[in-house]
Structures are given as structure tokens and as C-alpha cells.
């Protein structure tokens, strides 16, 4: 299915958010996720189903003021 990951179009085969993160290479990464603007806790990624057109944000720790 076609989803948007951090603003870039991706074609993923994984049915859930947890699997998609692995597919995208972030299985071990320290990241936080939001789907279509709503926070998805780490514990809920396994049961969060993805669908065509979803907007996924994968955020990491970054410098800030």
C-alpha cells in the first residue's frame, strides 16, 4: 500500500505500524510515531493497522532550544 512517511511517498507491504517500522529500517531506532496527526504509543504499534494514504510521522531526538 502507498503511505507517506515523513513527507515522502513509500510503498509498504506490512499491515501494521510495528511491521512497517521494521520494513523501513527503524526496528531498533529510538523513535516516536504519529499516524495522521495522532500519537501512536510504542505499545500500540503492533495493533495499529495501516491503510492506503496514511500519513506516518517518525520522529527522533534532535537538537533544540
Amino acid at each position, binding site marked *: 500500500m502507498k503511505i507517506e512517511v515523513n513527507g515522502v511517498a513509500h510503498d509498504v507491504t506490512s499491515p501494521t505500524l510495528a511491521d512497517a517500522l521494521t520494513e523501513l529500517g527503524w526496528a531498533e531506532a529510538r523513535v516516536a510515531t504519529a499516524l495522521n496527526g495522532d500519537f501512536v504509543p510504542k505499545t500500540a504499534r503492533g495493533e495499529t493497522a495501516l491503510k492506503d494514504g496514511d500519513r506516518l510521522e517518525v*520522529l527522533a531526538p534532535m*537538537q533544540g532550544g
Partner: protein
Amino acid sequence: MRDFYGVTLDTPLMLGTAQYPSPAVLAAAFSDSRASVATVSLRREAGQGQAFWDIIKGVGVHILPNTAGCYSAREAITTAQMARELFETNWIKLEVIGHADTLQPDPFGLLDATEALAADGFEVFPYTTEDQVLAARLLDAGARVLMPWGAPIGSGLGLNNRYGLRTLRAAFPDVPMVIDAGLGLPSHAADALEMGFDAVLLNTAVAQAGDPVAMARAFALAVQAGALARAAEPMEPRDMARPSTPVIGKAWL
């Protein structure tokens, strides 16, 4: 030193982690600043996030994630929720920006987000102005700390509205307050502490100085001086001179 949601800081300095010339300079600046808190953010993972996380853990101070760049309560709330999981802290420096040029807070969005986040167990550090009415509303909404700006973020102008800040400090004497944003010089930081603010938060003034590590040391000394001076109860200024040398006993010449 007043406590911030149950945490007593060793020094009244909070330092940002952005805009340093290198990670090594960041680490050295933190060490010499003796800052008690490091502010951090969240951005789209592009490969550098994991290394930065290791640097920040190495600095060994309290972590205060921000919601920088959020222009709505909804964005800020989602960002705060992500920050809580990522950084494992209930602290959030809540920024809801209202204008791109001044980066001043949107008071309405800030209040909405403060209310929602405080109800959700967050310990909110709202980035606000010196507006006393907004301060009262933020406290009603559940904030236990306020972070009034000195001047627009990154401007280095110092304490832009001393009257407003003095009034705010006097109106809520028991609320921990951090002057956040706009400080450019150590003297601005000393000034804020002398006025009775509990801490200062700055980033650009150190990170963009010609020698960030030396500037970090200068700010460390300034906040120490300011806090000492405040505790020592400064004299009241007056308009007319008053001789400090005794008048009695002066010779008839």
C-alpha cells in the same frame, strides 16, 4: 532555589542544544555552563537522531523537550505526547507559536494545550509572554511553572519589558519562573536573576558566540552572581544622591 515540579536544580541555568558548531563544542559548553537542564526537540528521523540521543545522555542533566515550531494546540499536544515517550519525562517546554517573525506565543493555543497536557499528567513549562492575565489563566489550567520571554527567540535583545516582567514576578511570588528566550549577554541573565526570576533558559547566546565554551562559562558566572545578589537583598534605587561618606565630623576648612 525553588523547585520545578519537585526537582530542585543545582544551578539556575537551562541551556539549549541547538546551533553549536560541533557535538564536541556542545558537550564542552554544557560542562562549562554547569547548566542543570538541557532543552531538546523532536524532528523527522533522518539518521542523526540516535547519535544525538547518545550525546544528550552523556551530558547527564535534566532533559526538557520542547514543542518548537508548533503553530496549533493540536500539533503541540501530539508533539508533547511523542516527546514524553521518546525522552521518558513528563516535562514539556510548551511552545505554541503565534507569529513567524516574532515567534511570540499564541496565547489562546497555549492555554488550550496547557489545559489538555496538564490534565494528561504532563508537567508543563509554558513559553509565554509577560502578560499577567495569561499567566493567571495558565496557572488555572494546571501549569506550575511559567516561562516568560525576555525578548523574541534568538534576538539577543535581553529583557525587553522590564516593567512587565517585574509586575509579573510580583504578582505571582510563589510560582517558579524561568526567563526563556531573547537573552544575548551574561548581564541579561544576571539581571533576570537579580529581579527574582528563578532561572534562565538560553541557547543562541552561547551556541552562536565566537567562543561558545567561554560564553558558557560567562553565563555560569552571571547566573551565580545574579542569584547571590538576589538572595543578598539589593538596595532600593533612589533619584537623589545620598553621601556614603559620613557628613558628621567633616573638617571646617
